[in-house]
């Protein structure tokens, strides 16, 4: 069971679904993560996972429409077993997809596309997609400081 870590500032961003915003989001996440005790390497992993998730929303949820809304929040958490970590929530209001179908392509089938989900799962300790009430998707990702990047096929659900 993860609980919010006391005394830490959550990060909340409301964004448009515009790829031009991605570099700024990555920088904001890296800065926030380092400020909250993550190493620069881990901060880069967090920024990459969020970038991939936002890219998926822009591409698949909104079909590259730059005017749609995405809500991103990050908060520190503490788990009795896994220790300190963070939880990232990404809420969009676009197309809904069966969460069971979000699995990325078979890596042995080499072709462009379908790689973002593998990257997200490797960077994060847990990844959960859900259809949000009222439309769109909610992605909840958690990463603990003890997490090490996993190779494909070894990550959890």
């Amino acid at each position, binding site marked *: 069971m993860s609980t919010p870590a006391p005394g830490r500032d959550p990060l909340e961003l409301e964004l448009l679904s515009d790829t031009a915003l991605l570099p700024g989001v990555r920088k904001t996440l890296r800065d926030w993560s380092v400020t909250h005790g993550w190493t620069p390497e881990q901060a880069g992993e967090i920024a*990459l996972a969020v970038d991939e998730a936002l890219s998926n929303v822009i591409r698949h949820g909104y079909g590259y429409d730059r005017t749609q809304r995405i809500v991103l929040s990050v908060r520190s958490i503490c788990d009795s077993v896994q220790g300190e970590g963070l939880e990232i929530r990404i809420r969009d209001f676009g197309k809904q997809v069966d969460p069971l179908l979000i699995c990325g392509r078979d890596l042995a089938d080499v072709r462009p596309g379908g790689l973002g989900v593998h990257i997200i799962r490797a960077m994060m300790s847990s990844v959960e997609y859900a259809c949000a009430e009222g439309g769109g998707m909610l992605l909840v990702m958690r990463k603990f400081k003890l997490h090490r990047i996993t190779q494909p096929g070894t990550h959890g659900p």
Partner: protein
Amino acid sequence: MNQSASRLTIRSQYDADGPVVTLAGEVDLRSSPQLREALLEILEQRPARLVIDLSGVEYMDSSGVGTMVEVKRRVERDGGRIILAGLQPRVRSVFEITQLDRFFEIRRDVDEATER
């Protein structure tokens, strides 16, 4: 959140065996279409060997890696060869996670990539 201009620069030069394309900056969903367009233009000359110098690339996401896969397919379709050089650890890690480090010919730097 401020918008930013493209953070990717693309330069190309030629040696006797073909083009060496040098990238610098960040490759993401915003900049990868620009990269794809530039590389496909170079491929119109059907080079026997294409070297892509990634030593100046600080960040690459799956859209950039996907662009590399497409370019490799096209180079090989025309009987050519593509070599990636100078990957920074963070970029190399993306290739490893997606198991594409096994698919690409990767060299330490441009000198090693252009060695005969």
